[in-house]
């Protein structure tokens, strides 16, 4: 079974978010980058489990610059066999997805796994775009994935519940909570990661379709109004008359 896992970097979840150059760019100064949690905890770990049970290989792919190599090595330390980096800034989701699809087209993968979303741009776009470019089915927001030969059974989140679906390989899946448990890389994994192949490929000529023009921080909250714990009638009254939410 050949599996391709799309890995992106994201700022550590505790990062303070600030912008520079007149609020047009994210200020990476002092920000620690990690593997996007959905990609690492769910997509990558489930891919490794499937490989362990069925043989095959796990390739990780990132659209990014040399700065991303540290994050890629971390994903290799968790257990991926090899890495591919498309050497470019990921200009937008379309650009990123088309690069990954171009690579996937020349290598027959049974399943392409992405995270549910990146925790910086929260788009949930890249997986569906890859599926369309490859002309394969797409299962989004999967919380479970089992494979039997060329047939996979998945659970996906739908409004207010879950759906059990079946699909044949090849397909693309975006992975959410429930898929797998986080794995902490061990020393052996970290050592091995240093010598695993990391192939750098130049990008295809693709125009981005969107761009982030500027950013803003949300208006800061006014001070919290404290309510006497004995007096919940007052809280209900404020929620009704002042906040007008009940």
């Amino acid at each position, binding site marked *: 079974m050949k599996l391709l896992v799309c890995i992106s970097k994201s700022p550590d*979840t*505790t990062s303070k*978010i600030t912008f520079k150059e007149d609020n047009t760019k994210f200020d990476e100064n002092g920000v620690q980058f990690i593997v996007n*949690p959905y990609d690492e905890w769910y997509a990558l770990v489930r891919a490794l489990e499937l490989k362990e049970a069925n043989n095959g290989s796990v390739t990780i792919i990132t659209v990014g610059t040399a700065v991303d190599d540290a994050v890629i090595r971390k994903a290799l330390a968790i257990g991926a066999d090899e890495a591919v980096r498309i050497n470019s800034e990921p200009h937008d*989701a*379309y650009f990123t*997805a088309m690069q990954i699809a171009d690579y996937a087209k020349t290598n027959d993968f049974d399943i392409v796994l992405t995270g549910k979303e990146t*925790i*910086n741009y*929260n*788009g*949930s*776009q*890249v*997986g*569906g*775009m890859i*599926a*369309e470019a490859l002309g*394969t*089915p*797409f*299962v989004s*927001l999967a919380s479970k994935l089992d494979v039997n030969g060329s047939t996979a059974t998945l659970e996906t*989140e*739908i*409004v*207010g*519940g*879950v759906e059990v*679906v*079946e*699909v*044949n390989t090849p*397909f693309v899946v975006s992975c959410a*909570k429930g898929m797998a448990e986080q794995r902490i890389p061990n020393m052996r994994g970290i050592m091995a990661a240093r010598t695993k192949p990391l192939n750098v490929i130049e990008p295809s000529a693709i*125009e981005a*379709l*969107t*761009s*982030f*023009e500027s950013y*803003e*921080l*949300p208006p800061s*909250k*006014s001070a*919290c109004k*404290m*309510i006497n*714990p004995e007096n*919940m*009638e007052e*809280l*209900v*009254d404020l*929620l009704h008359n002042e*906040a007008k*939410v*009940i």
Partner: protein
Amino acid sequence: MSTLVYINSNNGLAKNTLEAITYAKKLGEEVIAITTGSADDSVLATLGQYGANKVLIDRTVNTDDSQQITNVVAAAAESMGSNSVVFSHDFIGKSVGPRLSVRLKAGLVPGATDIPRNGKIRVNVFSGKAMGFVSIKSARKVISLLPNSLQPEGGGENCPVEEFNGNAGIAGVKVLDSKVPEGEIPLPEAELVVSAGRGLKGPENWGMVEELAKELGAATACSRPVADIGWRPHHEHVGQTGVAIRPNLYIAAGISGAIQHLAGVNGSKVIVVVNTDPEAPFFKAADYGVVGDAFEVIPRLTEAVKKFKANG
């Protein structure tokens, strides 16, 4: 020129579908709604009240398969000459929107929270810690609207409903089973949410949370550790790695307010925090705070809500 809106009509017309129609109307062009499935014409015609000029329905498609729906929406966009396609940013918008973007080579803005202003569309980024303004460079545009970003505006007339055949092809994804708990309010759609964390000590203490939620007509949610240790089902986990919600009211009891939790709830209009620790970080993000024991405060709040309802 027209704006095409994909509507999920499988279980009646949910609020987020009406929001999407209202949003499309605000874009200023003729609004054509397209849906799949088997909804009644009389139900679909009411979309006209929110601004649809016409509704198309392809009854040959009865799944949520992203390939089939993409085929139908792309065919409708061609035949209606639509330069913009609008979705709600729900599970269909998240699977069909990206496909359609590639199919039409149309830039996609996922999770829009406002109509375009000076050609830029606002979205939440960094899990709600900031907002970004996106421009689309292509002539055609796909926009998915974050639920609860605007109020549906009704008051218009019903509109015509027409059959449409978009040559959907076959479904690549086969649905074997679907489990939707009866009678529960789905979390992403809920306007009121009552949530609790590790401060509640054990799953046996959730009765009071459910009771308050029931009294308010609210959905229930929880922090991540509570779902991870199995006190509550996974779909209730809100935050950066769980569900992101933006209800009108979020009541959090026994939750410390870690930054990853806040990332999923900071879009809420009003936040009420109940915590024994006056230093809990959550108070910094709250509108109303109660320093007290959830085991006393929550039942007291439930009583107060009951009294409020009884007095009309």
